[in-house]
């Protein structure tokens, strides 16, 4: 059981570069989420998706884009990296419904220099 898989695990970007953080789940979950985790700040929701072809903004969407062309994949795109985007990024999924728990990937640690 792979669950939620994120790649890469670590990345260093220069200011202005772009990259895509990959997220894939093999549980046939409809709902997928991207969070960023900053020290002492908990997790902030960046974007989420309730199904293929449907995405919506979370609390902190600026500087990011997402797409959801399949149920399994939910990539997060950073177009012009900025130091403020240095963080740990977590992808999560759940089957849907308000009472279901989320499953998290192991995270991507991104540093922008």
């Amino acid at each position, binding site marked *: 059981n792979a669950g939620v898989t994120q790649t890469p695990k670590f990345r260093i970007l220069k200011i202005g570069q772009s990259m895509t953080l990959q997220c894939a789940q093999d549980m046939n979950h409809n709902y997928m989420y991207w969070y960023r985790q900053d020290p002492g700040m908990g997790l902030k929701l960046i974007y989420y998706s*309730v199904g293929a072809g449907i995405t919506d903004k979370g609390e902190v969407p600026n500087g990011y884009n997402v797409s959801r062309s399949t149920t399994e994949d939910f990539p997060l795109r950073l177009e012009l990296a900025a130091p403020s985007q240095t963080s740990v990024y977590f992808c999560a999924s759940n089957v849907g419904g*308000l009472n279901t728990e*989320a499953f*998290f990937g192991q995270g991507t640690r991104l540093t922008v220099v």
Partner: protein
Amino acid sequence: AQSVAQPEDQVNVAEGNPLTVKCTYSVSGNPYLFWYVQYPNRGLQFLLKYITGDNLVKGSYGFEAEFNKSQTSFHLKKPSALVSDSALYFCAVREGGGNKLVFGAGTILRVKS
């Protein structure tokens, strides 16, 4: 909008003693409440949830949590702490009718032998 507060940045307990990690929430509708645990360099893992029914819910690894509607609290408890319980704990709330899971800032639990 829903919100979660974890008033303690860190909780220190001795092994074998009971532990409590506090959480209060604010939602406009019925709350769906969750506790997650994060071990170093890992993603979040689900511990337990309150949806409806009994105010005392039991979860993984001997943890339990008590829902108190009048105090809008959902404190995490364990009767006897283990050193292996040392981790970062997050409380989260999903508002009835909403798609988003909002996390608190997290509480570091340190259990000393």
